């Protein structure tokens, strides 16, 4: 009979043994393959990442609490001044609002239009491959080139869009697309939406191609109409694609720079700035690196938090 006192003693080797076996197996395996030293191979990449990304990032955070001008060795700590100025300055506050507006508008429209286009091009229409290429084409063009192109399209008087309005009978219409403070954010958002709808379309197309046709056929046999099939069959199966697209669109929206800088430079009267253009202007045009990095830190925090929330949503959506 085994006494209670000795029972754990007899049980212990039973649970510990596999762990010890596993450990020695790993060691043996590592010794046999040399993988104990394989981590050395990631050192160059890690060193590069540390020098190029981590150290500058931490330096940036450090300098966001200083008044450093980027050149002088003479700088001092200013505490939270750079951050408080950001929230006190009317232009910065407007830029924060604009940044969210750019992100929300581009995310909503890129995804709605991208999904609609993907659904249309997932059908058996003859020219679908040509149309896919055409819709994707703006994605491969440089943002700067696209911004210059749209600057011409949006031009007052002789711009193509104004001419189009005249051609359809709106002869008095001459919207100041890029020069009216009430219109400019929407006009710039149109550029971004036009550029990246093709990108979301491609991700949705990939998602649609992964949906088993039998499920759609079964739903159709059960009497489900097109909308019902989309809502109860397609949408749940597209959830990972939707999450990825929303995350990418949001991050792109928050980082918007080229389209604003080329078309308006943040104008008219500082009404179209985003946080990114404000970072550039403050750090490089005004030579206030400390204040510029403070704005960049705030932008990074916003993007980081939203990215984290989206990532959690992605995991919960089953895209592990």
């Amino acid at each position, binding site marked *: 009979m085994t006494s209670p006192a000795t029972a754990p003693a007899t049980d212990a080797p039973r649970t510990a043994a596999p762990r010890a076996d596993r450990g020695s197996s790993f060691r043996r395996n590592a010794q046999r393959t040399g993988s104990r*030293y394989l981590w050395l*191979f990631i050192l160059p990449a890690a060193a590069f990442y540390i020098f190029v990304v981590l150290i500058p990032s931490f330096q940036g955070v450090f300098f966001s609490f200083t008044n450093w001008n980027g050149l002088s060795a*003479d700088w001092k700590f200013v505490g939270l001044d750079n951050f408080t100025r950001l929230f006190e300055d009317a232009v910065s506050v407007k830029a924060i609002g604009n940044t969210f507006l750019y992100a929300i508008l581009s995310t909503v429209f890129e995804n709605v239009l991208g999904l609609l286009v993907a659904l249309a091009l997932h059908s058996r229409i003859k020219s679908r491959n040509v149309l896919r290429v055409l819709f994707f084409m703006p994605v491969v063009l440089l943002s700067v080139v696209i911004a210059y192109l749209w600057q011409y399209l949006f*031009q*007052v008087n002789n711009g193509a869009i104004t001419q189009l309005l005249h051609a359809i009978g709106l002869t008095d219409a001459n919207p100041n697309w890029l020069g009216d403070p009430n219109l400019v954010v929407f006009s710039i958002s149109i550029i971004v939406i036009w550029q990246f709808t093709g990108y979301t379309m491609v991700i949705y197309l990939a998602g649609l191609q992964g949906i088993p046709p039998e499920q759609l056929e079964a739903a159709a046999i059960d009497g489900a109409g097109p909308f019902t099939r989309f809502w109860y069959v397609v949408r749940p199966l597209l959830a990972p694609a939707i999450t990825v697209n929303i995350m990418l669109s949001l991050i792109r929206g928050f980082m918007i720079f080229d389209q604003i800088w080329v078309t308006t430079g943040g104008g008219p009267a500082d009404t179209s700035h985003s946080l990114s253009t404000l970072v550039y202007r403050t750090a490089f045009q005004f030579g206030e690196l400390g204040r510029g990095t403070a704005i960049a830190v705030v932008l990074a925090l916003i993007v980081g938090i939203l990215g984290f929330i989206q990532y959690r949503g992605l995991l919960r959506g089953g895209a592990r």
Partner: protein
Amino acid sequence: MQWNRKLAIGGATFAIAGLLLAGCTAPDAENGGGATDDGTFLKIDWLANEKAGIDAVVAAFQEANPDIQVVVTTADTAQYQASIRTQLGTGTAADVFYVWPGDGNTAAIRQLDSGDFLTDLSDESWVGQYPDFIRELVSIDDKAYIMAPLATAFTPVYNQAALDAAGLTPPEAWSDVIPFCEAASKAGKVAYALAGNNLYAGQAPYYNLVADLVYGTDTKFDQQLLDGKTTFTENKGYVEATEKYQEMMDAGCFQPNATGTPYDESNRMLAAGEALGQFLIGTRIAALQAIAPDGDFRIYPFHSDDDEATNAVTLSTQGGAAVYAKTPRQETAKKFVSFLADNIELYQAAMPGTIPTITEGYTPANANEQFLVDTIQQGHAVHFLNQMWPNARIESAMVNGIQGLLVGSASPSDMLASMQKEFDTE
């Protein structure tokens, strides 16, 4: 097994060493390889919109000095101003690089003064040939730092054929300005095209308005502002100039929707005769001539009051060559800068709408250049406004304030208050 371990450690060590060595040697390679001045290499960083000028001088320099390899890199203004500070901060600046005179932007000599980046060129013979006001702008504490080849002005430029067709003459005094705008409007023309979509286009009319009203009567304004004895909001000249700008806008002197008009469109309007004039910096006349090679685009003086005694024109140098104080190629760099000074007309000939800063012995090629030379000789030249402002934010407040006037979101007093706020903020 041992062999694998050695291979792994050795491979990783080589890779890290290679990475670090590549990083360490990169700046030197960028500077052309040699760390000493053997007189065979020179690197120049220049402004893209003066590329034609520097290319002409570099070609002549290389012909005269075939043993010296010259590498020129250009960038547009915003990109250049951002990158030059980074290069100076990291010790990778070119031997000769473009800088701005005075103050007011991040690549102006007074903004770069804190780091001992600029070689003192005071002993060069050409420094004594500058007009006094240019020498002051390119100097700090009587030490000259820039070989600035060009001078140009902010003035109205008119399409002479369009003026003749409309039967109008440009205004010679402020009392003529609003009637001129009204007459242009009656003739179905815009008096002045304005590329208000470009942030900095709106400053051209403003510089013209301020010149007479502030500097025509009170040349000590800049010092008084720095000493705290006046402000933008209190200075009568600035208040009047800003209100007169608003008056011009209200009188329809500029086309509707000016903030949606880029330079391409405003230039087209002027070249096509839809607009009679446009306020420009002289270097932009080349763009007009490019789209209308046969066009007759003439500079006429503009005055913001009716008193001839206060006539002034914002005419200055945009910038020029500085020698990087930390480059080992000091002698080669100075040799090039001297060559630039000696061949200043070569540079100027490639840049229409400008004159050389050293006008001794210079013969103007046309009426526009004659106007610029006369302005200097009569002592009517006033520096560009921002060249005496202590930070770049004031200019930004000015150009955004002007856009605010155009779209109706700001008043003249708002604009001046905004400029003063940026002046007062460290």
